[in-house]
């Protein structure tokens, strides 16, 4: 657990900004990087997502939690253009995004990772990383023919990639095929690769699933580091200790709807949340500190 005096400046700023926000679903934020209204997605008879309103505070770490099947991944898919909403509108940095193709979403600075990792197994780890870099001259075929046009840029991309790999403790796997990585390492690779795009909003779908506990602590550091570098982080996570440890704000989904919002402390005491997880009000707090 992070103690008050070890909080970074960015943490203090983010938490101060959120302190005045109403603890209620759909609460307005002082400086929202992302806001969405009336987002609905049905699969056959199932309403997977039905979000009336939600805002994500810029420069904060927001956790999106909720039981299995709550619609967290589907919401990610909708916001990033990987799935089409039945209705709804949302904006990123004030730009309306409902009809923006997924690759444009990413190049606008809104990058996401996948719950089921998508490491490109037949590319090496370092090639996976290089792929993430944007605005590469050599990605135009007429430039690709001439190494001297793109080699210098490639070298600086490689340098940045190696730095990130080391930070995520998979630097030693640099030249292996990504297919040779373990499940947890693939999660790390995917997260590092997403960072290669220089995003402003990072959306991580269960980044810690399958990562060993010691490394989880480490990842939490990284996530805080991202925020300290000015990025906004929205992440899905089931491990409440982790959520408590790293997030400035928590949004709770259940059955497609947002049922609660607040600081981690608020959420751990919220009866509606306990209810959603256990389906009963008799249960004791899931989020109690040990």
């Amino acid at each position: 657990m992070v103690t008050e005096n070890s909080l970074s400046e960015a943490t203090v700023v983010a938490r101060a900004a959120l302190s005045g926000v109403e603890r209620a679903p759909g609460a307005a934020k002082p400086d929202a990087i992302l806001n969405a209204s009336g987002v609905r997605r049905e699969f056959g008879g199932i309403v997977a997502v039905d979000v009336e309103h939600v805002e994500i505070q810029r420069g904060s770490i927001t956790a999106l939690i909720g039981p299995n099947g709550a619609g967290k991944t589907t919401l990610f898919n909708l916001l990033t253009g990987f799935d089409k909403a039945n209705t709804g509108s949302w904006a990123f940095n004030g730009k309306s995004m409902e009809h923006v193709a997924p690759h444009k979403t990413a190049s606008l600075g809104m990058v996401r990772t996948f719950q089921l990792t998508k490491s490109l197994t037949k590319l090496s780890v370092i090639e996976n990383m290089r792929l993430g870099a944007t605005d590469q001259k050599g990605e135009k075929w007429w430039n690709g023919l001439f190494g001297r046009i793109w080699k210098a840029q490639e070298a600086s991309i490689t340098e940045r990639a190696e730095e990130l790999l080391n930070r995520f403790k998979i630097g030693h796997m640099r030249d292996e095929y990504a297919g040779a990585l373990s499940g947890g390492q693939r999660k790390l690779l995917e997260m590092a690769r997403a960072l290669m795009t220089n995003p402003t909003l990072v959306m991580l779908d269960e980044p810690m699933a399958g990562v060993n506990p010691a490394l989880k602590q480490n990842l939490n550091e990284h996530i805080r580091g991202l925020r300290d570098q000015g990025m906004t982080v929205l992440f899905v996570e089931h491990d409440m200790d982790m959520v408590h440890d790293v997030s400035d704000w928590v949004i709770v989904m259940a059955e497609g709807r947002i049922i609660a919002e607040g600081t981690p402390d608020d959420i751990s005491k919220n009866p509606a949340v306990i209810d959603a997880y256990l389906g009963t009000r008799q249960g004791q707090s899931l989020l109690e500190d040990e």
Partner: protein
Amino acid sequence: MDWSLIIENSIKGFIGINAVYFAIAAIGLNVQFGFTGLLNFGQAGFMACGAYGLGMTAHYFGISMWWGIPIGIAFSVVLGFLMGIPTLRLRADYLAIVTIASAEIIRLVVRSVKFKTYFGGSDGINGFSDSFRNIGDDIGIVQANQYGFWPLRFTGREIWTLVVGWVVVAVVAYFVYLLMKSPWGRVLKAIREDEDAVRSLGKSVFSYKMQSLILGGAIGTMSGMIFALDRGSVQPDNYSRDVTFYILTALVLGGVAKVSGSIVGPMIFWGIFTFMDNFLRQVAKDPVHLGNFTIMKSTQVGQLNYMLIGLTLILLMVYRPQGVFGNRKEMAFDGH
């Protein structure tokens, strides 16, 4: 049994014009199928673009044959867009269906009576390649002369096409090799594996697939041109479905996603094919009997040969799925 003839012909098959035009087409197909994972089953259609581009200069436009090169390429770019726009956003199988159908439509249109003025109908187009042939004569490779000694003997006519053909193979192969080593090639290989991952990193998958389809198609077009120049004629039925599938077979034989594989595969394919054909023809000079049951007559050699090609492919897929030059390690990560 005339072994010297069998050997001579097999070597000709190995490095001959069939291997050349297959190799060029396979390099193009490799860009699409091997590197990007696009199921283009209509490479013959792209080849027809090149052949008819050349043929139509004399037959319809009445201009110099050399204009046929840009015209053929332009045809193939148009064809690539026509195939790609409706399908490249959909699942891979749709492209397969559309490409195979497009290639057939092209063949049926160019051989139709209605469009005979443009494409020459089922007779095709002949007698347009003199300006190409003359260059050979001019630089001293006389068409009618014999050059070389056993087992490498060619007419001047053959040599000239082979030299040009292999130069085209080398240039195109180097071009594709450079591209695949570049960040552009990296995007294609990533698309082959997981389109959504590539999208999530901000690259337009549709645009890259289109580029790959058109580039591979334009290379296929060059293959059609070399073939047409060699024959000195353009025949609609040379661009049927079988051609696409033999090229695909040759590519898989060499190993997909390796530029070297797309050259060596066609050479081995035609080497073995020609050897078997010649060998079986010698064997079946007199009908082969087992007891009083006729096993094989000379007229059945062709069929048997194709059966053996099929068998070879099956064995290859079982015992060496990565082809001769393919990367076994890469294969190991198939399907995670």
